[in-house]
């Protein structure tokens, strides 16, 4: 096999591996591992929940119920919950070691990440993370305006 064919083969294997990994993360969790309780919560909140592949069924059920509680409590106590929830595409419950002090983290993709050690009393963290989703959803001009005015109030005193 000449060098060009070898490179092509390596590239093909890498592409299949990468695609398979992405497919497994996106669909494997749902079609291979999701429990009936987890699926019921997903239907209720209208978003897919990604959990650890190491979780047993009981753990998956427990985490799914936690997501449901956080969702219910935040929705009950916040006038604009539904409007902000539109900015979230999916949720992921992470193991504690992966997040350090950050309880939940919102990414540009709309993925809302929650720490597995949250309790049912921690729904204000849910609101905190949804703030990031809201901020990202603003138009560029709105984001610039908000940032400029917020900075002015804060006397530009942020430490990065």
């Amino acid at each position, binding site marked *: 096999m000449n060098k060009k064919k070898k490179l092509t083969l390596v590239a093909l294997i890498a592409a299949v591996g990468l695609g398979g990994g992405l497919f497994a993360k996106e669909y494997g969790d749902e079609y291979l591992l999701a429990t009936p309780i987890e699926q019921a919560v997903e239907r209720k909140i209208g978003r897919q929940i990604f959990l650890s592949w190491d979780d047993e069924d009981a753990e998956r059920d427990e985490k799914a119920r936690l997501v449901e509680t956080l969702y219910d409590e*935040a929705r009950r*106590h*916040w*006038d*604009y919950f539904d*409007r*902000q929830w539109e900015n979230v595409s999916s949720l992921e419950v992470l193991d504690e070691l992966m997040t350090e002090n950050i309880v939940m983290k919102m990414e540009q993709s709309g993925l809302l990440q929650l720490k597995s050690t949250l*309790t049912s*009393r*921690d729904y*204000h*963290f849910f*609101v*905190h*993370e949804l*703030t*990031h989703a*809201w*901020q990202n959803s*603003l138009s560029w001009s*709105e984001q610039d305006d*908000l*940032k400029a*005015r*917020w*900075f002015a*109030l*804060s*006397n*530009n*005193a*942020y*430490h*990065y």
Partner: protein
Amino acid sequence: MDQTQPCQQYIHEAATVSCYGARNFKEDVATIVELVYLLNFSKREEHPNFDQHLARIDQRAYSLVVEKIHLATEFGFYSPAEEKIAADLVRVRFTRNRSPP
């Protein structure tokens, strides 16, 4: 979990953030709006020991928190009703608990 704990942590953090900018902009925004949620929660649930925690906020932090709550509302995160409840609670409770000069 102790129900006062998140509030206590939050208020302390809010005062720090608003006075000294100890964290970055995005986290400051998220922390302030989280405060509004807690304030409204405390209004509904009569949060125990909330006053003494709020008393930790000094004059400068108190004013900034109120202004930032208004800004977050203006950009659509909270309803005007929620802003009013939160701002009123901050003002009333701050005044009531402020130490005499």
